[in-house]
C-alpha cells in the first residue's frame, strides 16, 4: 500500500509538472535550440529498450525450446507492455504541440522515421498485449474456478476477459497456435521498434549519431537492460509473493548467464561504436568523443560503461554472483547504467553541432534537466511500475497453467 501510494504520488507530481509545461510551454524544461531533445527522448529510448525484453523471454526463448524461462514470461511481458505504453506517452510529452497529435494521422508522411516509429510502436503494443492476454486465458479459468475463495470484484474482470475459456481441446489448439504465430511475429517487430528508434538519431548527420552501427547497438543494449529489469522484477516478486517454489535460484543462475552473454554482445557493439571513430578522430567526431572520454560527460560515460556493463558482467561470471541478491543488485546497476547511457546518446551529440554555438542565448549552450523534466521522467517511471503493480494484484504473475505443464513435463524437478 505504501509502495502504491508513493508511486501514485510520483505520478501526480509528474502530472503537475506536465500541467505547467502545457501552460507555459516547453520553456519549463531546460532544453534549448542546441539540446533540443533532452531526458524526455532519452527516457523514451530507455522505455523502448526495456520493452524489448518481452520478445526476448517470451518469443526467442520459446522458439529456442528453452523451458526454464516459462515462469518468467509474464513478468517480461507486463514489463514490455507498460514500458511501451509509457514510451508513447513520453513522446507526446516531448511534443511542443501535443494537441496536434492528430496531424500525424491527417498529414502523415511515410518518409519520416517518426512515422515509422509510430507505426511499429503501436504494432508492438498490440502484439505484446496479445502475448500477455492469450497465455493468460487458462489462468483466468483457474482463477474463476476459485471464485468462492472470495477475491471480490476482480472475478468480474476474470469473467469478462476469460469467461469463455472452457479448456477444451480445440480452444487450446487455437490458442497454442496463436501464441506460436505471435512469438514468431514479435521478433522482427521488436527488432524494428528499436532499430527505428535508433534511426531517429542515425538518419541525421550529427557526430555520435551518424553511425551505421546504431540499429544493432541499440537492439543489443535493449536486450541487456530488459533482461536486467526482469531480474529485478523476479527478485521483488519472489520476495513479496513468496514465489520461491516457482522462481528458483536456478532461474537467477540462468538469467545471470544470459545477462553475461547480452553484456558481451553489447560491449562488442560499444567497442565498434566508440573505438572506430576514435581511431580516425574526424574533426566533427573529435569534440564529441573527447567530451565523452575525458570531458564534461566523462564521469557519466565511464559510470554507465563500467557500472552498467563491465562490472556486472564480470561479477556474473562467478557462480556466487548469480545468487538472487547479488543478481538483484547487479540488475539495478544494469538498468541505472542503461538509463544514463541513453542520456549520453541523446544529449552530448546535440551540444556538439557542426557550426559553433553562437548568436544564441547563453542558456542554450548547456543542458541539465529542470525539475519539471525530472518530475515527468520519474513520474513516467513510477507509472510503469504502477501498471506492473496493479497487474500483479489482479492477475497471477507466474503463468500457472504453463508452469504446471512445464513441471509435469520435467518430473525430476
Amino acid at each position, binding site marked *: 500500500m505504501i509502495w502504491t501510494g508513493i508511486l501514485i504520488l510520483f505520478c501526480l507530481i509528474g502530472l503537475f509538472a506536465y500541467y505547467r509545461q502545457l501552460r507555459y510551454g516547453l520553456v519549463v524544461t531546460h532544453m534549448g535550440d542546441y539540446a533540443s531533445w533532452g531526458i524526455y527522448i532519452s527516457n523514451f529510448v530507455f522505455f523502448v529498450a526495456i520493452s524489448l525484453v518481452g520478445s526476448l523471454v517470451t518469443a526467442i526463448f520459446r522458439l529456442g525450446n528453452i523451458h526454464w524461462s516459462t515462469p518468467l514470461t509474464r513478468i517480461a511481458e507486463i514489463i514490455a507492455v507498460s514500458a511501451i505504453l509509457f514510451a508513447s506517452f513520453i513522446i507526446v510529452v516531448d511534443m511542443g504541440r501535443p494537441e496536434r497529435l492528430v496531424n500525424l494521422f491527417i*498529414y*502523415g508522411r511515410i518518409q519520416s522515421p517518426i512515422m515509422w516509429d509510430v*507505426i511499429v510502436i503501436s504494432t508492438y503494443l498490440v*502484439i505484446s498485449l*496479445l502475448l500477455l492476454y*492469450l497465455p493468460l486465458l487458462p489462468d483466468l479459468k483457474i482463477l474463476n474456478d476459485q471464485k468462492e475463495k472470495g477475491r471480490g470484484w476482480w472475478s468480474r474482470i476474470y469473467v469478462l476477459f476469460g469467461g*469463455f475459456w472452457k479448456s477444451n481441446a480445440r*480452444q487450446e489448439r487455437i490458442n497454442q497456435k*496463436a501464441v506460436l504465430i505471435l512469438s514468431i511475429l514479435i521478433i522482427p517487430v521488436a527488432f524494428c521498434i528499436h532499430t527505428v528508434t535508433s534511426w531517429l538519431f542515425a538518419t541525421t548527420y550529427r557526430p555520435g549519431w551518424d553511425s551505421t552501427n546504431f540499429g544493432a547497438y541499440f537492439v543489443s543494449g535493449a536486450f541487456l537492460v530488459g533482461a536486467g529489469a526482469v531480474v529485478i522484477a523476479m527478485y521483488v516478486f519472489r520476495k513479496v509473493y513468496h514465489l520461491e517454489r516457482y522462481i528458483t535460484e536456478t532461474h537467477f543462475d540462468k538469467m545471470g548467464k544470459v545477462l553475461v552473454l547480452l553484456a558481451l554482445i553489447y560491449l562488442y557493439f560499444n567497442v565498434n561504436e566508440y573505438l572506430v571513430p576514435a581511431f580516425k578522430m574526424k574533426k566533427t567526431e573529435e569534440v564529441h568523443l573527447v567530451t565523452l572520454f575525458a570531458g564534461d560527460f566523462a564521469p557519466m560515460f565511464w559510470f554507465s560503461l563500467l557500472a552498467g556493463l563491465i562490472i556486472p558482467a564480470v561479477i556474473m561470471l562467478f557462480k556466487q554472483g548469480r545468487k538472487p541478491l547479488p543478481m538483484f543488485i547487479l540488475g539495478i546497476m544494469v538498468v541505472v547504467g542503461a538509463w544514463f547511457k541513453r542520456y549520453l546518446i541523446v544529449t552530448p551529440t546535440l551540444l556538439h553541432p557542426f557550426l559553433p554555438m553562437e548568436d544564441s542565448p547563453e542558456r542554450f549552450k548547456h543542458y541539465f534537466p529542470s525539475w519539471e523534466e525530472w518530475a515527468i521522467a520519474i513520474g513516467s517511471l513510477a507509472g510503469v511500475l504502477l501498471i506492473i503493480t496493479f497487474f500483479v494484484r489482479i492477475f497471477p504473475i507466474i503463468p500457472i497453467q504453463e508452469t504446471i505443464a512445464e513441471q509435469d513435463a520435467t518430473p525430476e524437478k
Partner: protein
Amino acid sequence: MQLLKNKSGLLAILSLAFAFSVKAQDEATRTMLVDISYHMPANRVPYLKVTAKEKVGRNFIPLKDIIGKVYINEEAESSLLEDIRTDSKGESRIFIPAAFKTVWDASGSHQFIVVTEAGEEFESVQSEVEVTKAKIEIDTVYENGVRNIIVKVSEQQSGEWQPAGDVEVKIAIQRLLGNLPVGEEDIYTTDEEGTVSVEFTRDSLPGDEEGNYVIVAWTEDHEQFGNVFAEKTVNWGVAQEPQDFSSRRSLWATGTQAPVWLLGLAFSIIGGVWGTLIYLFIQIVQIRKLGKTAD
C-alpha cells in the same frame, strides 16, 4: 540614515536630469524631408512621386499620412493638380489630370511644386522639381554576328522632339529583383545625336520560355529629365523549360510524393504484420465462440 540621504540626493539629481532631457526632447524641432520626383515610364503616362521622411539618428524613417498639395508651375489654386496623403512607405503618387491638357501642352518644361500642410509635429515644407519632357527609345541592330543596343534620348523643345546629348543613361537587362547591366559598364552617356550604342555581350543568358527578355534604359534622377524609362523585349535569351521538381518523387517530397519503393516496402510490411494480427483477432473470436457453444 546617511545612506538614505545619499540615495535621495542621487534620486533628486536623476529626476532633474530626466526632466531636463524630456524638456530638451520636446524642444528639439523635428524636420521633415519632402521630395518630389518626376517619372516617365514607357514613354506614355508621366507621374509625380512625393516622399516624406524624417532623419532619426543615421536612418531615414518614412512619414505616413502627411497631407499636402501638388501644383504645376505656380503655387496657385488654379494650378492645383491634386491633394496628397502619404502611405505607410511615406509615398504618394499622382498623375497629371486631363484637365491640365492646355497647360501641359503649352511648354516642354514644367515646374512641379509640393507644399505640405503644417501640422502639430511638423511645419509646412515646400519642394519643387523642374522637368523637361523627355523620351527614351531602344532599338536593336544585329549585324556581322554582333548585337548592338541603340538607345536614343530626345527632349521636347518648343513643341518638337530634339535629340538630347550628354545625358547619362543606364542600360540593363530586366530581372526579377535587379537590373543586370548589359555590358561591363553601368552608365552610358549619349552623344550629340542623343544616342548610345552598346555592344551586347551577355550571351546565353536565360530568357523566359521563348527566350525573351526585356532590355531597359532609364535616366536616374536626371536634373533636367527626371526619371525616364523605356523597355524593349528581345529574343536573345536561352529558352527555358519550366522545371517543376515538386512533382518528382523523393524522400523530401510531400507525403503524397513518397518514392514508390518506400511506399511498396512500407505498405507490404504493414500489410503483412497487420494481416496476421487481424487473423489472430479472428482466432480469439473463434475461441470465444467455442466457449459459448461448449455451454
